[in-house]
């Protein structure tokens, strides 16, 4: 079963990556040509366009991921520290936790369409956000023509990116916060006690105890979030005005792959490129995954294994002293 549904598609992706792009030569093996087109695109004009598109999608993915990860981790870390601080007495902690996790379970597709409505930018009928801003006085309103000078939250390059970053942060900070909280609660409470007896203030506790002991979990969060960021699809794909085309400012790698094999998503079917891009994405994920494993591996177990090896070596040495005879 695992082979059929998980491993075979993966292998098939590799196979597809080495095949031709047009329907006619789908069975033609073209070797590394697809990769060459994606990474360098120096064959002809068509491939250069694909290459540019691919590089752009990578750049966008990176920008969107950075822009959502930094505020997200800052927010979640500070909240997690405050929530687990036993000295502070804040009523309704459970309620806050529940509310902050809420955005994460809502369908991403619905969230994208909802924000598209809220951030509408039409001059005569703007979305809620532009209207609120005009009430505060940021967005000018001309009563004579009944038109707003709206901020281009959908078609503007940085505006749309910021909205997508905000949605991602909004959706994921609760999840990260709860993960970090369980990490903090896993720290031995006697350490905090000792620190408070020694008269450490909360800043010192955070710098000297919480942060170093939380670092592995933070790194794990970083890597999983990076893998998640590489898969970002629903929101960038649906946050657009023009139904057939994703704006170039939001095109992520996942959208690129999807567009290359899905006939209705604009552009022709090009399984080869989609496969090649997937393979590249796979290797990036693999490297990131290995890093995550390396960070979260059981250090005690490794130390024990090392000890066993050392003992074995010593035993071997001892054997040698007896003339190489194994006793």
């Amino acid at each position: 079963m695992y082979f059929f549904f998980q491993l075979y598609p993966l292998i098939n992706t590799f196979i597809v990556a080495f095949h031709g792009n047009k329907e006619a030569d789908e069975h033609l093996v073209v070797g590394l040509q697809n990769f060459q087109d994606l990474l360098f695109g120096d064959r002809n004009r068509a491939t250069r366009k694909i290459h540019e598109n691919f590089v752009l999608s990578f750049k966008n993915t990176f920008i969107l991921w950075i822009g959502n990860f930094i505020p997200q981790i800052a927010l979640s870390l500070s909240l997690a520290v405050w929530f687990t601080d036993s000295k502070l007495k804040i009523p309704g902690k459970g309620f806050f936790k529940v509310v902050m996790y809420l955005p994460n379970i809502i369908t991403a597709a619905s969230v994208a369409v909802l924000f598209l409505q809220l951030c509408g930018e039409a001059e005569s009928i703007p979305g809620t956000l532009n209207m609120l801003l005009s009430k505060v006085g940021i967005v000018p309103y001309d009563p004579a023509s009944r038109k707003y000078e709206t901020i281009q939250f959908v078609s503007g390059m940085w505006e749309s990116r910021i909205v997508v970053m905000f949605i991602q942060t909004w959706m994921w900070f609760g999840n990260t916060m709860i993960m970090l909280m369980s990490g903090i609660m896993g720290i031995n409470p006697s350490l905090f006690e000792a620190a408070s007896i020694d008269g450490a203030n909360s800043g010192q506790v955070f710098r000297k105890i919480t942060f170093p002991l939380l670092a592995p979990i933070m790194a794990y969060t970083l890597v999983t979030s990076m893998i998640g960021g590489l898969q970002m699809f629903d929101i960038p794909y649906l946050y657009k005005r023009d139904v057939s085309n994703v704006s170039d400012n939001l095109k992520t790698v996942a959208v690129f792959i999807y567009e290359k094999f899905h006939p209705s998503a604009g552009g022709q079917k090009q399984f080869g490129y989609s496969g090649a891009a997937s393979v590249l994405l796979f290797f990036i994920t693999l490297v990131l995954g290995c890093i995550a494993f390396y960070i979260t591996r059981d250090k005690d177990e490794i130390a024990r294994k090392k000890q066993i090896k050392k003992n074995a070596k010593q035993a071997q040495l001892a054997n040698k002293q007896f003339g190489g005879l194994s006793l």
Partner: protein
Amino acid sequence: MSNMRSVYGTSKKDNYSLKIKMKSGILFLWFVILTFICLLPIYILVVNATRESTAIANSTSFIPSHYFGQNLNTLLKNVTYSSVFNVWIGYRNSAIITGFSTIFTVFFSALTAYGLHVYDFKIKEAAYTIILLVMMVPVQVTSAGFVDFMLKLKLTDSYIPLIFPSIAAPAVVYFMRSYMKSSFPLDIVEAARIDGSGEFRTFLTIAIPMMKPAIAVQAIFAFIASWNNYYTPSMILLSSKFKQKTLPMMISGIQASDKFKDYGAIYMALALAIVPIVIVYILLSKFIIAGVALGGVKE
């Protein structure tokens, strides 16, 4: 003595507790603001679902109005909308796919984890490593190969590729196995064997009841993930027949804002899509938060 007093005196202590109180107060305020931000978009959505289209276009209000029934009517009866967004078909399709795939995910993952935990066979470690490796691979990577494969099998435009792959859910297996390691002693299996229970019966009558907490958490997450999934259905249902569309696909259909002028109806559609899952979440929030804390979710 006087020196001691100045360090441990009452005035210092009061100052300390005042500081804690101040900090708690400020943080409480900050949490309230964050809660506000979390809920505001959803609140506006619900309010706008009860308001008239022109009112939404001309002003923003935080007070619900009384056009709820009318918006619902437009959405369900007006052909422009009902040809793109039919909430009943959407619910039905989503429910079929989600229901079956949740059951499959939980049952077969429990079975796999049980097998990995209880039996000692040659390729056990290798199998487990492969499962972990596959867990790391995002859907998007395998999607091109998957669609190509399904095209060859002529299974696109059917629910089979959406339901059956859920049998193989590596992340769930990983979670269940670590749960079993901590709370499922092998002695029980031995005892059952001595009492003459068959292997499968042992699994059904002993292992599953013992793993109920893990199964419940994973079932909730499998349900949410499958209900919210937009990527896989839209890539498998290539011809996108209306009768087959899932709820997220219908939502993506009404996003073409040029065709649809009635904002009340659009917000109504979104509310119908979002509100059920919010209600489910509120009812189950205790389990969900606990599950996230266990590190059981990975998306």
